[in-house]
């Protein structure tokens, strides 16, 4: 008997045109077509979306929380990348 588990898919939904797809959860399905149908049934029962992406979970490469320091620390002290670092006189108005 084939008792293989159905693979896991991650589900992304665009709630309306103009917004990007956002991760909403995951589900099991035999194949991508079924994953789409199930995503529609599980995550779009109340007009939550206009477009669905499903991605096999094992196709996602994720960063390691343990690497947080070398990944994100270098950006923290570069405050000159933010507009508030620069002083513009009030009489110039909004810039």
């Amino acid at each position, binding site marked *: *008997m*084939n*008792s*293989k*588990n*159905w693979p*896991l898919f991650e589900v992304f939904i665009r709630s309306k045109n103009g917004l990007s797809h956002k991760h909403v*959860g*995951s*589900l*099991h399905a*035999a*194949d991508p077509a*079924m994953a789409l149908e199930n995503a529609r*049934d*599980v995550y779009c*029962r*109340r007009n939550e979306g206009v477009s669905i992406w499903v991605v096999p979970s094992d196709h996602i490469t*994720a960063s*390691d*929380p*343990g690497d947080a320091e070398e990944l994100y620390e270098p950006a923290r002290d570069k405050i000159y990348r933010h507009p508030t670092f620069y002083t513009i006189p009030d009489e110039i108005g909004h810039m």
Partner: protein
Amino acid sequence: MEQADLQRLFDSKIEQEIRIEPKDWMPEAYRKNNLRQISQHAHSEIVGMLPEANWISRAPSLRRKVALLAKVQDEAGHGLYLYSAAETLGTSRDEMLEDLNSGKAKYSSIFNYPTLNWADIGAVGWLVDGAAITNQVALCRTSYGPYARAMVRVCKEESFHQRQGYEIMMSMAFGTPEQKQMAQDALNRWWWPALMMFGPNDSESPHSQQSLNWKIKRVSNDDLRQEFIDKSIPQVEYLGLTLPDPDLKWNEERGHYDFGPIDWEEFYRVISGNGPCNKDRLEARNKAHNDGAWVREAAMAFAEKRQTNVA
């Protein structure tokens, strides 16, 4: 990082209300505690479909039927959200389902009570979902990210469950004397089991303090129970029904209702497998699982065949 540093980082996240995410380091006991709670919660959603499913084809009107159908469908979805959250802790859905079907895993003891007539469907939606919502609103701030996100979705969807139940109770309480009597009878039977849904008293709940420290639980069993009682009483009064508790009275000093003793012997009897429907529920679960096996296998075989053809 050293173990002690990892533990310090974890503790400071809990302290600062920063959610723990699946790939973050966490103490083994935290992982296990979450896994137990989330999987039990998932099982409760799945078994919770059974007492109501029986009434879908017996609903008194199309309006009631579509509502009940949508509610039961939601519960399947809520089970799925929760199983997905539990899977991020390193178990598989199949293992969890096996534990449920073999009787090893626990689920909320409330679902081991029978739904005898249509008024029970009103009482279940109003009181059982009402109690579940009280618990779940607090869990929206639980410290494990995937669990908290699942709770937010569940709460958003579940508010209609309680309202449709109360609407059924209103129809019956304001209907014929016989209907009102059915509503009262259902309230009498569901009130105490609903209060037991919050679990043992804090003094009898050994894991509670650790769960509160880890912010897995945000509010204690007794506080949630009190909140539910205080909220429910005006709803009972509006229906013109009475609660089966002679000790119930407003306590001005505490600012809460006092209530009579809960029959914890009954609670432990039902949770350990000897409630009115434990056997039926497990049989129905196993039958559904086994009868569906060929569908799961056929879908997988079809997917594999199609993949081979493409390749």
